[in-house]
Structure formats: structure tokens, C-alpha cells
């Protein structure tokens, strides 16, 4: 009697779990299993973890060029890069990622079969702060694992959420809707510019930015390690500093963080030449109320990203000549001096702040 009970219970549990896993595997709501990617389930669930999806997709696509960095780097458009370089491109930009996460991905991709020829990395000052934490969704074991990480198999096949997401994917695909499948990330890993994230900027937003920074030597070291790997494997490495909005630059000034910001650039330049798109210029000082150059206070737009790609990859005629300077140990001091001087233009642009923040 006990034998029958135990075997019935175990059998029923296994059967139901296998059924659930089969449905989730075939529908594949997160787009990480390659069996039925472009058919009845083409549009995947919108709210999916990019740290999970991009890890597997970047392996699966085996791109020749990858873009790394934070959500800002997600504004670099893979089709444009492919058009200029002829290399297949995947945007592996991950929201709030730091240089450790970027190094882990580079190391992992290079360890397995890959076609990598070019790596483009967006560098964001905030992510180099000593207090900046590695994102909770980053799983070291997932990135290092040669196959699917078991925890991911379980969470994408054996959970109520995966079953429910499978239903939502089927619903949207069958009904030809995007209620559940509208995503801020495109299949190529870049930001979906159709999604409007613009939100009101408040003084509190600025207070969050305005902290005392201390550059982490470890973070710098990971960039050095990436460069070493690229040198070993004969991979072209492009490093760039994002064109953050002048309002954010101004908080660095106001909080006396400009020397730290400059030192950060000096440290980076000692590793490799850097494209610096930051500074006080027509793009960074443009009004946030027009969405040409910025999606929001923190993120430049894909249009700005295109100008950066043109500048870095040699199609310079398409980018304004003042946008982006390649800095090296030879010209860094001169460049920093120019940036300091360019701040004088900010005074009469300060209206941007008042326009954005009523209680400024």
C-alpha cells in the first residue's frame, strides 16, 4: 500500500513536471531554446531578464561584433554597425552592468567557439564607483557554464511563471497583439526605440546622481583584462565614454567630483585609446523635452548612438566633427582642459534645468 502510494505520488509529480517543462520548452517564452524560435511563438515575453536572455542569445548568435556596457550601450544599433563593418553584431549591453560583468562575458565568449572580431564597450563613470554593486541578476555560474546553467533550466521550464509566460506568449502570438510581448529589448539586443521611457525629472533624481565617487581599481583592472584578452586573440577593441547629458556632468561639478571624473579618464587612457563623447556640446546640452538626442536624463537616444558609431567606425562624414574625441596619453590633458573650458557654455544653457525641474 505504501509502495503504491509513494510510486503514485512520485510518478504524478514527475509526469506533471515533464508536461510543464515540455510546454515551456516548446513555447520558449524567453527565447533561449533554439527549437521553435521563429514560428508560432516568434514574439517572446516582454518582461524577461536580459541577464539571462542575452547570455544565451549571444552564444547562440555567435556574432563577429559585440557591444558591451550598461543600458546606455544598448543604444548602439547592431544593423548600423553591420552596415559599416560587414560584421554580424549583437548588443550585449546590460542594464547597470559593471566592468566585471563585461569581462566575464568576454572571457566566456572567447572560451567557446566564437567568431569575435570586434568588441565595443561603453564606459560609464558611475559603474566604476567603489560602492557600485554587481547587478543581482548577474549569475557568475551561468556565464561560466559551458551549457545551460541548471538553475536557468529549472526557472525557465519548471516554474509557474514559465508556464504562465508560455500562455501569454501563445495568447499574443495567436491574437497578433503585444499586450505581454512588447519588450524594451530587440532581438539584436539593442534598445527598442519604440518604447518611450521618458519620465519627469525631479531634484531627487539629481540627488541620487550626486554622490561622492571613488573609482574602484578593480573595475579599471577588468578593463585592462579585457584589453589583454583582445590583444591575445587579435580582436579589435573600441572603448568609449558615453555622452551623458550636461545636467549629469553639472552634478559632478556641483559635488566637486570633476577631479575624480578626470582621474577616471586618465586611468582608462593609460590602458587603451578611448573615444570620449562626453562634455558640454550641442548634443549633451540639448533639451530633454525633445527626444532627438536623449531618451531620458540618463540615456542618450539611438540617433545619438548612430552618430557615435559613425564616428568610431570611420564613417566620420555622418557625425559632427566636434562630437567625440579619441583620447590617448598624449592628448588627454589638453582634452580635459578643453572640457573644463567648455563648461562656460553651460551657464546660458542652464535654462534646461529650470525647464525640466520646476523646483530647481
Amino acid at each position, binding site marked *: *500500500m505504501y509502495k503504491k*502510494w509513494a510510486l503514485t*505520488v512520485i510518478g504524478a*509529480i514527475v509526469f506533471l*513536471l515533464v508536461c*510543464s517543462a515540455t510546454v515551456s520548452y516548446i513555447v520558449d517564452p524567453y527565447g533561449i531554446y533554439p527549437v521553435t524560435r521563429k514560428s508560432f511563438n516568434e514574439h517572446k515575453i516582454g518582461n524577461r531578464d536580459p541577464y539571462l536572455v542575452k547570455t544565451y542569445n549571444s552564444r547562440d548568435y555567435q556574432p563577429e561584433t559585440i557591444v558591451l556596457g550598461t543600458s546606455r550601450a544598448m543604444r548602439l544599433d547592431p544593423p548600423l554597425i553591420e552596415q559599416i563593418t560587414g560584421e554580424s553584431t549583437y548588443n550585449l549591453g546590460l542594464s547597470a552592468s559593471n566592468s566585471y560583468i563585461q569581462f566575464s562575458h568576454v572571457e566566456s565568449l572567447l572560451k567557446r567557439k566564437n567568431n569575435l572580431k570586434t568588441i565595443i564597450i561603453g564606459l560609464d563613470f558611475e559603474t566604476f564607483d567603489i560602492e557600485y554593486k554587481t547587478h543581482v541578476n548577474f549569475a557568475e555560474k551561468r556565464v561560466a557554464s559551458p551549457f545551460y546553467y541548471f*538553475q536557468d533550466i529549472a526557472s525557465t521550464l519548471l516554474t509557474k511563471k514559465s508556464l504562465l509566460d508560455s500562455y501569454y506568449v501563445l495568447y499574443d502570438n495567436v491574437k497578433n497583439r503585444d499586450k505581454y510581448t512588447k519588450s524594451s529589448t530587440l532581438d539584436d539586443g539593442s534598445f527598442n526605440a519604440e518604447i518611450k521611457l521618458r519620465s519627469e525629472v525631479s531634484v531627487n533624481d539629481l540627488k541620487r546622481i550626486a554622490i561622492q565617487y571613488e573609482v574602484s581599481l578593480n573595475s579599471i583592472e577588468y578593463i585592462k583584462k579585457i584589453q589583454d584578452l583582445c590583444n591575445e586573440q587579435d580582436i579589435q577593441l573600441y572603448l568609449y565614454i558615453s555622452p551623458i547629458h550636461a545636467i549629469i556632468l553639472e552634478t559632478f561639478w556641483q559635488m566637486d567630483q570633476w577631479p575624480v571624473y578626470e582621474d577616471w579618464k586618465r586611468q582608462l587612457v593609460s590602458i587603451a585609446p578611448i573615444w570620449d563623447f562626453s562634455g558640454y556640446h550641442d548634443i549633451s546640452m540639448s533639451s530633454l523635452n525633445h527626444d532627438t538626442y536623449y531618451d531620458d536624463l540618463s540615456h542618450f537616444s539611438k540617433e545619438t548612438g548612430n552618430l557615435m558609431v559613425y564616428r568610431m567606425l570611420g564613417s566620420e562624414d555622418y557625425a559632427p566633427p566636434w562630437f567625440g574625441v579619441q583620447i590617448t596619453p598624449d592628448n588627454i590633458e589638453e582634452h580635459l582642459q578643453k572640457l573644463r573650458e567648455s563648461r562656460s557654455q553651460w551657464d546660458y544653457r542652464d535654462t534646461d534645468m529650470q525647464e525640466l525641474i520646476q523646483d530647481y
Partner: protein
Amino acid sequence: MLFNSPHFIFLYLPFVFITYFLLNAWTATQRYSKPWLVVCSLFFYGWWNPAYLPLILLSILANYIVGRYLISHKSRPALLAGIVFNLGLLGYFKYLDFILSNVNSLFSANLPLMNIALPLAISFYTFQQISYIIDCYNGKVKEQSLINYSLFVTFFPQLVAGPIVHHRQMMPQFLQPAHHQINYENISLGIYIFSIGLFKKVILADQFSTTVASGMGVLDSITFFDAWIVALSYTFQLYFDFSGYSDMAVGLGLLFNIRIPINFNSPYKATNLQEVMSRWHITLTRFLYDYVYIPVNRKLSRSAFMTKTLRLKTEWITSLSLVLLFLISGIWHGAGWNFIIWGLLIGIGIIVYRLWRKTNIRLPKAIAWGITFAYVNVILVFFKVSSVNEALTFIKAMFGVNGAILPERLFSFLQPLEQLGIVFGPSDVPGKDKALIYIVLGFILILGFKNTSEKAATFKPTLITAIFIVLIFLYAVMDMNKMSEFLYFNF
């Protein structure tokens, strides 16, 4: 590795279980199956941090050697050396920084803190082994093989967070030939108890934990109603988390035909504090009773306190021993003043109850339960909040010192309460509606239902129980996309 992780449930457990019984079937002597369980248990332990493995191996080996020596030589110095070794390890890894920081505060010194990470389960395996060598000294232990002893300490169901098992309960079971064969009755009961424990942890405890986490973020400004919601959520979280873990341990033991003692017996049904503590973390209380309370009580009765000049009544000696027992229980739980205060408050609470009992005034059961449960909620604040000042602030909020806020939507019904100073508006603890539903559910479950061991005692392999277990197991296991550690892993 966590019991509530897919790695454990889908990979580790089936592999260890099947291989164990295959090895048993292969050789009747358990020549390979016991070492297999030891190796698997050490793997289970090392999964968190392999760096802790040498420490537990050293501890096992040292205690085994001391124990062996004590069995053949009743040597007090050897026993003391063994106890000092165990307490020394525990003291170094768990209490050194606490002592240093207090020395720094007291003497305005600047001794550098060691920042030593607490090795997992050290409090549990240290206590188990102290009891072993004491019993070796007292002639209560027969010669054991190293494998048997290692299995007693490392057996994975109870290794990380108890129940604290006694060698008298465990070691004879490892030797019984009948325990080496598959026993479907035990397997059925094991699945039954494990599933209930998994449900308690994944569905109940983890839900309460979200409210607790929100409350901990606003300790300074929390108000009356929110404070009670957070306090009740923590009271339930702690119970469902730890009793869930203990259920899982008992269930897992049964899969291997090993009966692990129960650790909880509906503590929140108790109508006095002494009863609460005799039903809560039973194996720790029993250990402290046997190895602290009784020896201390005996010592106090026979020596200093019973001289002609200073003669204490038995009742006072008992009270003193009780306070000491729970003080040590508090210190065992963690290196912090909050745990010391928590332990003292339990001891004092029990003494007050014992004095009250002498008055022969009987409170109605509901009132006695209400007072007991409220007191448990208040003192558990010290268990949760490591800063004593913050804990006091929180307790003040529980007594209404920070005012009270009710949701705006209740204004039309409860407007008169505004006269009492209650504000209607938003508060800092989100998701209170859901939290309240879970608190009500928590009360229904702890007061209206039998506990796991009572359910297990009447377990019948029927279709209804099969459907019940399949449903709760699947519901819990398919909710494991957010794994969380057990609270007692910190102790």
C-alpha cells in the same frame, strides 16, 4: 545547497538516494553506502563554500580522537581539552569580533576587527560534538567507527541547521540492518513531511519575508499598525521558515530510514512562555537542559549557594539556572547584544510566569494565549534587529509612540478614530493588504490545524493524501524561481 533549490530536489537528492540503496543492495555490510553518504554530505556542505570543509573535517577528527580516548580513559583534562577546543573554534569564528568591538567600546581601544566569516553550521555541529565527548567521558558511548561518527555529524538532512541530533538517537540507527533496505512506509512518510516543509518555506515563509524586508527598511519611522504587521510577519516567517526546514530534514532522514527528532510542536499554540520554549527548537532546548541547566542546577544546589551563610531557596536556584539556560541560548544564536537581551527576556518571562503560577490565579485560556503570543512578538524584535537602539525604536512603535497610520480608504468607516490621533494616509510599508491576508492565514494554520508531526502520526496512504501532497509539492517546487536561504543558516 538549499533544500528549496532545484539542484537539490532534481539532481542531488535523487542521485544520492538511488546510489545509496544500490550500494546497500550490492553489499549487505554498508561498506560503501555509509562512506557514500558521508562524501555526499560533505559535498552538500561544501557547495556553499568549499573553504569550510577543512574546518569541519578537523573538528570531526579531533572530536573523534578525543571521544575514543575518553571511552577508554575517564580523563577530565582530556574532556576539558575537547570542550575548550570546540568552544575555542566557535569562539574564534563566531564571537571574536563581538568581543573585540566591545573591548574597543569599553576601553576606547582600537583593536582591529578580524571580519571572520561564520562557517556554515558551526554552532550546530559544535554542540552535537560537545555532547558526544561529554557522554564518552560519562561512559554512555560505545566504541564507534570513524565513518559512523562522521555520518552522525555530517548526515546532510540535519547538518546545516539542525535539528541538533544526539548520538544516542542517531548512531544506533546507522547500525540497524533493517535500515539499509528501501522502506516504502518511511519513504511515503518522508515525502509527506518533506512536502509540507517545502510548502511552509517556499510559499509561506518567503511571502512573509517580503513584508519583513519592507519594514526593516523603515525602522526609524514605522508607526503602530505597520510595526505590528511587520512584527507578526516576522513571527510567522521565523516559524514557517525554521519549522519548514526542520520538517524537510525529518522527511529527508526518513527517506534513508533515519528518524530525526522533531524540532517544533506548535509553539504558537502555547498559553505560557515556558510552554512556548518547550515546543520551539526542541532539540536545542533539550541540549541546553541536559548539558547546561541540569549541571548548573546541581552545582548551585550543592556548593556555593547552599552554604549556611548564603542559602538560596530551590526556586531561586531553578530561576537562576533557567535564566542562564536562555542566556546561553541567546548567545548561541548570535554574537550580539540583541541576542543576549532576547535570551534574558525569555528567561525573565519564564520566571515571571512561574511566580504568577504560584498565585493560583487562572487566566482564561484565550487571554493567557494572547499575552504569551504578544510577548513572543515583542521579544522577537531583538531576535530580528541587531541594533539594540533600533529594536527599542521598533518596540516603541509597537506601543504606539510613533503614532498610527491607517489606509485612506478606511477613512469613511473609521473616521472617529481620527480623534484618537490616528492618521489616514499612505505609509512606508507597501503591500499591506496581502500581508494581512497572509497573517490571517498564518493564524488559521498555526491555531486551527495539527502540526506536521501530529499529521504524520495519523498519516494514511490514501488517494486524498496523495493528491494533497502532489498539489502542495508542485505548487511549492514551481515557485522556486526565487531561492532564499533559511533564517537559521545564520546561526
